[in-house]
């Protein structure tokens, strides 16, 4: 039996069982395979404090809610894994970590290429601002200045990523 046929039989047998064939007989990963890219880790590596400050992202800590409170009142220490520390530098450092990077960003799919990508977590932030799960209300939308800060920061981070001006992936 030819190797190709043999392999086909092997793969067919495994797919019937719903089990992936092991990478090799000694069960170690294929050394030649490209490692999976953790896009959020890569994105975190591209986040810089300079760009964070330029976009005024630290102001999110002071974003007012309908209760007269501001984000940092509840999220200053990371409540619900959203970090809005009153210290902009601390907020930046936290928001680069795996635990908090999804506070502002999410994995998405590029509409044109169909490739996975990163985007601001607009839907989540808007839902929270509109009262999801009893969250205090806050202003949302394209014209809102804190949202504009996030858009500017995302844009500058994407540009940095595209030109390779990043630290190594974090996490």
């Amino acid at each position, binding site marked *: 039996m030819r190797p190709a046929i043999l392999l086909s039989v*092997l793969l067919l*047998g495994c797919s019937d069982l719903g*089990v*992936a064939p*092991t990478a090799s007989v000694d069960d170690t990963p294929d050394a030649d395979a490209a490692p999976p890219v953790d896009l959020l880790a890569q994105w975190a590596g591209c986040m810089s404090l300079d760009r964070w400050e330029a976009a005024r992202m630290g102001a999110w800590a002071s974003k007012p809610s309908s209760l007269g409170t501001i984000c940092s009142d509840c999220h200053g220490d990371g409540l619900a894994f959203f970090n809005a520390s009153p210290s902009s530098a601390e907020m930046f450092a936290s928001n680069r970590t795996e635990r908090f990077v999804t506070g502002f960003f999410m994995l998405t799919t590029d509409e044109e290429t169909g490739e996975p990508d990163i985007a601001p977590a607009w839907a989540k932030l808007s839902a929270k601002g509109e009262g999801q799960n009893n969250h205090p209300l806050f202003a949302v939308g394209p014209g809102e200045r804190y949202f504009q800060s996030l858009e500017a920061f995302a844009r500058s981070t994407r540009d940095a990523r595209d030109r390779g001006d990043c630290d190594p992936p974090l996490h």
Partner: protein
Amino acid sequence: MQKRSDLALATLLVAGCTGTYQRTSDPDRIPDGDDDQMTAAHRAFEEDVSPILAEKCATCHGASASGAQPKFLGDGESSYYDQILLYPSVTGDFDPGLAGVLTKIASGHYGVTYTAAQRDAIQDWLAAEALERGDDDGDGEVDQPASVNPLAEWAGCMTFEDWVTAGMGQWANKETEEDGPCSTCHADGLARFFASGESSEMFAMHRYELYIIGFFTVKVEADGSQTVVPALGKLRRMGSGNFHPNYATDEEADPDFAGLVEFHQLTMSRKTSGQCGPAGFPAAPEI
């Protein structure tokens, strides 16, 4: 030649399909003495999920693997459970729809796949964890999963006895510089701060999800654990202008701030000594 080919085919089929999942437990995997202390969810993990992770994930996500990918399995099977709980992105806070251990594989991850039985085993474990960390009311539904909301767990630890001991009811009488005591505006819960003149009512309301943030928030520690802390920063800020009447905010000299710190300590003592009621906010009264 034909025999050699047949032998090679058989060998490859056996070797290539080692991913076949057998739902069996290995009694040697769990150190003696620990079994009785395990929760049902933990036991389900050890018996049904750990073998899957060992087979499918450990090569790349164990502590000794090279690369920058998360090492959520730690060093050896005995550490799997403790380690994976430190990675909410992997467990999705026990929501299967958010759990990377499922979603990563479903969306394609190095060609690794699960069988239906393996998926079910992982989902069952996540559900068991969510239930155990939930409201524990035995109805099979997770109304307030404490794993997602440590404030729900905190609500189960708050007692009226501690509330009275710490003098928390006095917050209703806390004077402002311009507009009288807190209860003037907050007696019915304005801006989700409930300061009724009736201390028992105020206590009851502060256990609800809507009002518990009046006095408390959550600090996420470096290891991912979450600790409920008094919302001192907010209360200080609100008493210092910021479109709110001023009030005394010295947490050491002011008896109301001191009372909050004491109430927090008393409640934390109950939590650490296992004297809490079921985790979860009270059910809303029927109207």
